[in-house]
């Protein structure tokens, strides 16, 4: 369908109304249209305003610690068919993940719009922590919606947000996870839109969020592209990232999209496997529909009711995906694959033991994917993988998973 899915490397996207081919757009209540327009217009102005750019760049450098490193992982690479594996170290950012890139930009935008209150959703807690951090830094009041189920899975991040001065509201309706936290945040926004900005955490939602959040993460791939050229003298064969809503992946991919020789790979959360009912792989195992304000791939039943998602990683436990990914998938520019909980946990442990870097379980999905990719590319291959976050928040989950609590080992302790 060439007219439906134009070549992403050659076109300005999205269009003026936020469409990526047949995906994206704005399926939201009329009451929010004025606020969405305001965010879109303000971002258009801000991104072309040298003063705004300078302020954001200074924060990214002096507060976040950018540019983030590109670290070669040779011992891990031995388990990836020998291909060279380069880690884009978003885990080293202040607050421990890529999320801070988006949050600082939108927090500055909030102030530019004259709003004083910020709301956000969070799954793993990383976006909530980053948002609470930026609000503390900029003196904005902050309310974080989090599924009750996730407040239990990520109790430490709840405490972290409260330490930073944010109010954390556990959401006990629906499936009590990320999607319900987003529903609740939209309900808050409709009622308080006068003074409140909804600081959306990924490249999903109604226009302009998919484009805005992508633009704010563009720096990931932009840095990685010049770092890999410096290090290897050429472009990589592949860029890999995990895909929940898809923000770290869009950030990693965007600068490489015009480089048609660079393969782009998104790894979705396959849970128990995409052929089971327990996964969160919207592209690999879902169908096009409308969800949270955009047309995109979504896990849904025959009647269009959203199906519950499952992933061992709270940050990927979302039944849809950003609309630009849906478009990139249909166009063939990006390949999406699913990685199971078990594969991700194995890669999680492998990186920890081979490189002394404990990744976020989200990022471990990309690492598991790279093991396969490396085998396909062989020893000549060069792969950049976005290490979207660090695993401190996941130590509890990993300890339970591997039976590490009473000093125990799980028995399979082959030295890596």
């Amino acid at each position, binding site marked *: 369908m060439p007219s439906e899915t134009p070549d992403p490397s050659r076109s300005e996207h999205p269009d003026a109304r936020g469409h990526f081919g047949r995906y994206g757009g704005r399926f939201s209540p009329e009451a929010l249209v004025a606020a969405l327009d305001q965010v879109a217009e303000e971002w258009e102005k801000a991104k072309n305003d040298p003063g705004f750019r300078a302020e954001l760049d200074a924060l990214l450098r002096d507060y976040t610690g950018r540019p983030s490193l590109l670290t070669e992982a040779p011992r891990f690479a031995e388990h990836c068919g020998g291909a060279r594996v380069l880690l884009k170290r978003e885990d080293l950012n202040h607050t421990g993940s890529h999320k801070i890139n988006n949050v600082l930009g939108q927090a500055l935008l909030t102030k530019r719009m004259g709003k004083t209150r910020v709301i956000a959703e969070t799954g793993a807690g990383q976006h909530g922590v980053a948002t609470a951090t930026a609000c503390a830094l900029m003196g904005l009041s902050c309310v974080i919606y989090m599924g009750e189920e996730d407040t239990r899975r990520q109790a430490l991040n709840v405490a972290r947000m409260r330490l930073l001065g944010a109010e954390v509201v556990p959401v006990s309706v629906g499936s009590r996870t990320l999607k319900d936290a987003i529903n609740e945040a*939209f309900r808050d926004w409709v009622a308080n839109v006068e003074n409140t900005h909804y600081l959306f955490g990924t490249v999903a939602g109604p226009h302009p969020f998919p484009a805005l959040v992508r633009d704010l993460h563009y720096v990931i791939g932009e840095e990685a592209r010049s770092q890999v050229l410096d290090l290897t003298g050429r472009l990589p064969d592949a860029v890999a990232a995990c895909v929940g809503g898809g923000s770290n992946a869009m950030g990693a991919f965007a600068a490489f999209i015009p480089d048609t020789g660079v393969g782009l790979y998104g790894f979705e959360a396959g849970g128990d496997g995409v052929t089971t009912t327990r996964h969160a792989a919207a592209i690999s195992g879902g169908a096009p529909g409308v969800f949270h304000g955009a047309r995109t791939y979504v896990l849904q039943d025959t009647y269009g009711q959203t199906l519950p998602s499952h992933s061992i990683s709270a940050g990927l436990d979302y039944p849809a995906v950003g609309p630009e990914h849906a478009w990139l998938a249909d166009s063939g520019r990006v390949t999406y694959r699913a990685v199971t909980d078990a594969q991700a946990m194995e890669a999680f442990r492998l990186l920890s033991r081979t490189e002394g870097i404990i990744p976020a379980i989200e990022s471990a999905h990309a690492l598991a994917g790279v093991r396969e990719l490396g085998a396909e590319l062989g020893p000549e291959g060069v792969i950049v993988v976005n290490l979207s976050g660090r695993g401190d928040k996941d130590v509890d989950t990993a300890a339970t998973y591997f039976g590490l609590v009473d000093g125990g080992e799980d028995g399979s302790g082959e030295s890596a």
Partner: protein
Amino acid sequence: MSQTTLQAALARTKADGRAALIGYLPAGFPDPDSSIKVIEAMVEGGCDVVEVGLPYSDPTMDGPTIQRAADTALAAGTTPPDVLRVVEATAATGAAALVMTYWNPVERYGPDRFCADLAAAGGAGAITPDLIPEEADEWLAATDAAGLDRVFLVAPSSSDERLRLTARASRGFVYAASLMGVTGTRAQVSGTAEKLVARTRDAIGDGGGLPVCVGLGISNRSQAAEVAAYADGVIAGAGFCQRVLDAPDLETGISAVRSFAEELALGVRAGRS
């Protein structure tokens, strides 16, 4: 195009010199057969029009009461075919039946097929709270082909330009949200509603004749009267759901629903006297 049952109902109440009473209930709440009984009580109590809700897993425009009602309906296994069956029963009472639905279930069903089946069930059309006219090309075509009404929403935050756009796309009536917020009963109807209705009428222009109905927050007779003084229809939903949720059994709930409809029906008749 011949007049829909909704258009006829609103013409009739206008000729009577009063606002229409429009009640909302999710189909399948508390289960499909019981929801038909509840709706019959709403009509006996005086509802001129019934919005039959299509329960959806992610109702971002609804407050806790309607969320609970929709969750109950989904837990009872309610599907779009059940909703159409409730529409058919509603139309059989003599009230005009409209579906209220988030967009994805319609997209999944197929807009053309949905409209054909809705028309066959005797439905007059549908309200789509998360569909704005810019995204509605397929919906406009499907409702045109089936001769159905399509109701879009306007909000206090809508610009004059958007009011015109939305009014042009709407058929049956325009739904004016009385306040910035989600569904649910409120102690007071906000003062912004009257202004929004006036702005919407300006946007519709002379000779348009498209009715403007007001919803969100209306929960008693005096609020109904207050809104009926300036709107063509008064929409109440959470109040009906709440009465069913609060009742110890279905019979009690149904009689509470009937009395609530009677109370609101007095309100819409008092509005212009």
